[in-house]
């Protein structure tokens, strides 16, 4: 039984927990990072490697993604170890006229927000992706879409924070929380207790388990994404690839809500699994083929039907992939919210108790900016972005301590 003291205790060592730990350590805070398993055991360690601008709805998330990308460009030199950051550009494949029309509107609205993205015809697409299927009529192209290795990114944040005095407790969970006159006391299942000024809940899909400890419910639910890993192969093309279908499904959360509210059996399999196409080559040459968006609770298994759909889909867009072996499949639980925005801020009625969770598929891409705004809020600085959209109290409720 040890009594630990710190300025900030962060629960959850995913990409947000580690990035916030890094930023706060840089600002001189004594940080204790606690994970119930190990670094990256949740969604941050079971995702792909993309930093996508094109997929973001024009609005505050796109603005934050811009800033995040800028931050990545400096973090890659500032962090103590390599994060395999690279800007390859991205293409969203368009299969038919209907999707083309939707994407033209989408691209136009993104252009207004200052995102450098355009629609390119098949001829130009072939220069970027010579092996794309014959019936793909067009594509979007943005030179700015980038990628980063999530495991190396978390490791680099962790190393950087450690160099500035952060400590990490793995395989430890908080079992109860007490409010003190100033700050909080966490009781840990190891028998130790922590006294801290500030708590940050960065537990991703498991964030509600933490807020429940202070009597607050946060509507974050796990959304499963299944991904295939191929053997290492030479690069197929220059860019990372998605399909317009994926973006269309991301733009319309009502489809996902339909998915959640039963009636699943009646839906077509692709719809039932929330199938979208995301295709990216890693530094090692392994390709990642994703992904599904499913509401299956905390079940992290992969299943033959979904993997079959993903496999058929990659062959549909890149017929050459029928010759490539899959070596592994995995699933991650993305923390999703009812309105598609994360919760970033202080829990109502619980001063000093913060949350930074609910980024669904944008956690990696937004981690640098998330760290910045959270560190601003915690240290009493005004963030550069309006934070109302991300207010943890926007669905009502108050901590019931």
């Amino acid at each position, binding site marked *: 039984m040890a009594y630990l003291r710190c300025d900030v205790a962060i629960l959850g060592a995913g990409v947000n927990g580690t990035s916030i730990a890094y930023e706060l350590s840089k600002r001189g805070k004594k940080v204790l990072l606690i994970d119930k398993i190990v670094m990256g055991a949740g969604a941050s360690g079971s995702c792909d490697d993309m930093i996508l601008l094109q997929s973001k709805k024009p609005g505050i998330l796109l603005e934050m993604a811009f800033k995040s990308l800028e931050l990545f460009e400096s973090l890659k030199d500032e962090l103590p170890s390599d994060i395999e950051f690279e800007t390859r550009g991205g293409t969203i494949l368009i299969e038919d006229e209907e999707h083309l029309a939707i994407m033209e509107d989408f691209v136009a609205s993104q252009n207004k927000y200052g995102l450098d993205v355009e629609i390119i015809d098949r001829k130009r697409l072939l220069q970027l992706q010579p092996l794309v299927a014959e019936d793909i009529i067009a594509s979007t192209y943005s030179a700015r879409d980038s990628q980063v290795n999530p495991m190396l990114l978390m490791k680099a944040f962790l190393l950087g924070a450690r160099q500035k005095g952060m400590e990490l407790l793995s395989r430890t969970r908080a079992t109860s929380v007490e409010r003190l006159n100033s700050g909080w006391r966490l009781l840990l299942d190891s028998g130790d207790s922590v006294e801290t000024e500030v708590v940050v809940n960065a537990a991703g899909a498991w964030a509600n388990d933490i807020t429940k400890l202070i009597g607050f419910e946060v509507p974050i639910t796990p959304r499963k994404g299944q991904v295939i890993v191929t053997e290492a192969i030479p690069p197929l093309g220059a860019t990372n690839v998605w399909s317009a279908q994926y973006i269309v499904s991301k733009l319309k959360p009502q489809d996902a809500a339909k998915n959640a509210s039963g009636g699943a059996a009646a839906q077509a399999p692709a719809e039932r699994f929330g199938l979208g196409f995301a295709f990216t080559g890693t530094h090692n040459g392994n390709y990642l083929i994703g992904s599904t968006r499913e509401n299956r609770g905390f079940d992290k*298994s*992969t*299943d*033959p039907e979904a*993997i079959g759909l993903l496999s058929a889909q990659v062959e549909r867009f890149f017929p050459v992939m029928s010759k490539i*072996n899959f070596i592994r*499949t995995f699933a991650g639980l993305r923390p999703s919210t009812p309105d598609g925005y994360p919760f970033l801020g202080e829990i109502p009625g619980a001063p000093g108790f913060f949350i930074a969770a609910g980024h669904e598929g944008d956690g990696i891409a937004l981690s640098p900016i998330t760290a910045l705004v959270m560190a601003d809020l915690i240290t009493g600085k005004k963030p550069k972005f309006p934070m109302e959209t991300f207010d943890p109290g926007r669905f009502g409720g108050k901590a019931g301590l």
Partner: protein
Amino acid sequence: MRNDEKPAIVVGAGPAGLCAAIELKKAGAPVVLMDENAKPGGQLFKQIHKFFGSQEHKAGIRGFDIGKELLAESLRLGIDVRLKTEVVGIELGLKVWAVEDRTKSYTLDAGKLILATGATENALSFPGWTLPGVMTAGCAQTLINVHRVLPGKRILMVGSGNVGVIVAYQLMQAGAQVAAVIEALPRLGGYGVHTAKVRRAGVPFYCSTTIIRAEGAESVERAVIASIDAKFQPIPGTEQILDVDTICLAVGLTPSIELSCLAECKQIYIPELGGNMPAHDEYMRSSNQSVYVVGDIAGVEEASTAMEEGRLAGIHAAWAMGYMDDQTMKIKTDETRGRLQALRQGIFGQKRFAAKERILAMRKDA
């Protein structure tokens, strides 16, 4: 009472899996035997040496002949053997997800599941370890005994356990020269009879010795070895250069436990049997009562013990599925366990016997 017609699915058609499938089929239970390779038999077909033990353990018979016998028996019984079939997933409940010939994917409900997935050879990393010419001893054995290809002319064998000395001897039989057998521990690890044959042929053995690096432009041309101290650190000044073109690594095996993890079998750590492995009870059942683990996955031993473990699980699974009465099951499992015990007697079996007893005790505690 037979629960239903779902077959017992056996994964891995090596000695353990073949014996499990044979016992199930003999009892009349439906059984499907899957293996990722093009041929069944596991590692038996590269084992050209004679087996130890008593008569009922096929002592004096060579590994590949045992393999042929088991195959003939499985053919005679008409077992549904599915080759080039990789099991890539297990759904609790119980369903197996298989990929056939790397093209066709399907799932199959299982009454019981018997995992006989074997073990994987350990590697050792040192400067130059990725040069062509560095390989595991099992790889060299497959090349000479199955494909009849000599991997090189002058060999350094790293590791003096049974695999090391048996493969060293077989490489000599195949026409290679063995420059040395080195061993990191202060004493030799293999059975005397195998070790002595290699030593009588004039091969030097170096204990407390390790490989420092492999050298060569395009492939292995030399190996640098050195003595090590009690903390396994190289002692400066003791380096020796051996002119070899092949370096074989015989540094132990690790149970191939992936499928048992998917089946949520409780894992335990038993270093003397290869590290992490699924726990099992006296019928080879894992903590998941529908899943059995047999052979090297349940602790690295030998083909002879793997076969008996396979039989034990096959008999018990047939009983659990309603294809054998209580008394027959009891008599047959007692007999099989008696033979298993006998195989683990004597100074060579002692350590394994004690380790296996520890596994059973752990299961009882749990």
